[in-house]
């Protein structure tokens, strides 16, 4: 289905990454936003709160982040596309209900405009140190989908993509941007509505009394049950059977958790989005995501100009991790490099998948600014030896 023209600000705009996230959500048909302001994410909520009244959406500033996350789960079950945004400590506070969203298999989008941490850390400066929290921040076993935009333009596009993934796989999807991208203003081209493809939620076609909220299906994704159409059903954060009722035993736990994991893993090839450049003949491959994948370009170009066979992989999706691709490359290249604004998070996954078959390098720092070209270049020189 195509986007609704009245939700799409078609044209060229000069927008920051946060406003672009808001426009992406609106274009995707988001109709509920529950949030709590926190720097550097607040402009997303601000823009949504200005635009929603004209479009028939509901914006609520909740009392805190726990309630914000809960509100978007409720509104999603109520039948509308829902989003929240946060940063830093707010992301930590959302983690419990994020897990509830995973367990209830609830489509929604959460944008984390990453700042430096731990704790209140650097409210006004960038970081990428919430990547492992995105992966494992709520308790229990599960899989996540996380995307990382490198510009306002990509923020717009990836928020739409996140909504599509969340509806397709019936789960919360994370957009892991950062303060640099969020507060960076650039040209954003918003296409005509008919060029924006939206995936709509799959609802059961069964009659009331027959539909099950967690019915097993061949693709691992159960159709949802619409509210207000005569169905009576139960959902809970407790381990549940297909009917949605709590069943506290190992057998049900196995089925329940396996469904959460399998539905992402069995579609991983389809979900994983990598942009590769010069990888085929590469001796060294440099991997990065979000703003880091952008600021390494001058150093990579310099190295290539000097004859170093360096390839690049920009990870548009960070989770699920491109395990298969990294294993393949590890058998072919001398080294793999990961560039991220932290002291080695996604690096750990790259290193694990390299499994000792090639050298691995991290270009990392504690956040507060983006990487400088010199550090990246020096690591490339070392990695190609």
């Amino acid at each position, binding site marked *: 289905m195509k986007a609704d023209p009245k939700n799409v600000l078609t044209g060229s705009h000069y927008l920051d990454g946060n406003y672009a996230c808001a426009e992406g959500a609106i274009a995707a048909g988001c109709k509920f936003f529950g949030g709590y302001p926190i720097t550097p994410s607040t402009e997303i909520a601000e823009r949504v709160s200005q635009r929603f009244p004209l479009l028939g959406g509901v914006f609520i500033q909740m009392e805190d982040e726990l309630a914000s996350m809960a509100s978007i789960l409720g509104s999603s079950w109520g039948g509308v596309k829902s989003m929240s945004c946060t940063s830093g400590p707010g992301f930590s506070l959302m983690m419990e209900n994020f897990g509830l969203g995973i367990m209830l298999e609830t489509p929604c989008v959460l944008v984390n405009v990453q700042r430096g941490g731990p704790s209140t850390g650097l409210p006004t400066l960038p970081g990428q140190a919430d990547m492992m929290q995105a992966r494992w921040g709520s308790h229990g076993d599960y899989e996540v989908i996380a995307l990382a935009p490198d510009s306002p333009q990509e923020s717009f596009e990836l928020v739409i993509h996140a909504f599509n993934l969340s509806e397709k796989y019936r789960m919360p999807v994370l957009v892991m941007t950062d303060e640099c991208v969020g507060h960076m*203003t650039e040209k954003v081209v918003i296409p005509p509505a008919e060029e924006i493809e939206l995936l709509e939620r799959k609802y059961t076609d069964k009659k009331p009394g027959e539909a099950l909220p967690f019915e097993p299906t061949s693709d691992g994704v159960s159709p949802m049950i619409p509210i207000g159409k005569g169905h009576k059903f139960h959902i809970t954060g407790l381990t549940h059977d297909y009917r949605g009722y709590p069943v506290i035993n190992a057998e049900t736990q196995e089925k329940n958790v396996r469904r959460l994991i399998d539905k992402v893993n069995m579609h991983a090839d389809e979900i994983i989005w990598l942009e590769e450049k010069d990888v085929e003949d590469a001796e060294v491959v440099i991997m990065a995501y979000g703003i880091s994948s952008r600021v390494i370009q*001058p150093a990579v170009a310099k190295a290539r100009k000097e004859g170093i066979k360096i390839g690049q992989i920009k990870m548009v999706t960070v989770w699920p991790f491109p395990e298969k691709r990294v294993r393949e490359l590890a058998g072919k290249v001398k080294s793999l490099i990961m560039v991220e604004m932290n002291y080695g998070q996604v690096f750990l996954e790259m290193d694990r998948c390299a499994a000792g078959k090639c050298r691995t390098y991290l270009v990392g720092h504690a956040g507060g600014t*983006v990487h400088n070209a010199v550090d990246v270049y020096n690591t490339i020189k070392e990695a190609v030896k």
Partner: protein
Amino acid sequence: MAATEIRITGFGGQGVILCGYIIGKAASIYHDQHATLTQSFGPEARGSACSAQVVVSDSRVLYPYVTSPGIMLALSNDGYLTHKDTMAEDCILVYEKDLVKPEKDGPKAKAFGVPATRIAEELGRKIVLNIVMLGFFGAVTDLVPAEALRKSVETSVPAGTEELNLKAFDKGYEYGVHLKEKVELKV
């Protein structure tokens, strides 16, 4: 063309950020350049010296921050003093003549001053001093075409204030054209 870094500095309330926004929008929406705007968000930006940074380039801007500006617009002396040491060797300084006192051993390239606040006051609203600066900037530098800047002013200022702001832009531009002629005559 390599990327050109611009820093606009002044104190909170002078319209420093809007100034950066208008330059970036002019370059990337009304001209065929790429432009990335970033701004200081810390507590220092609230009330005292603040700054906006724009990187303008013919190709995609890869590194978004300004480290060594090739053009600096100084709207206040505090802002000038805070950032003067970051100016590139050949940095063009565009400054508010009555508020900023550039040091003699400042930039090796040209420095252009305009009494923007006074011109804005003559127009009846001191608040448009940033737009006077922009018109002046359009005249004394050739990075972004003045026509694109003017269009960007028109579409960026609050509705109902377009006429006043365009007048302010034109005043600044005229002042800049005359000053540049004088400077070139001297050379």
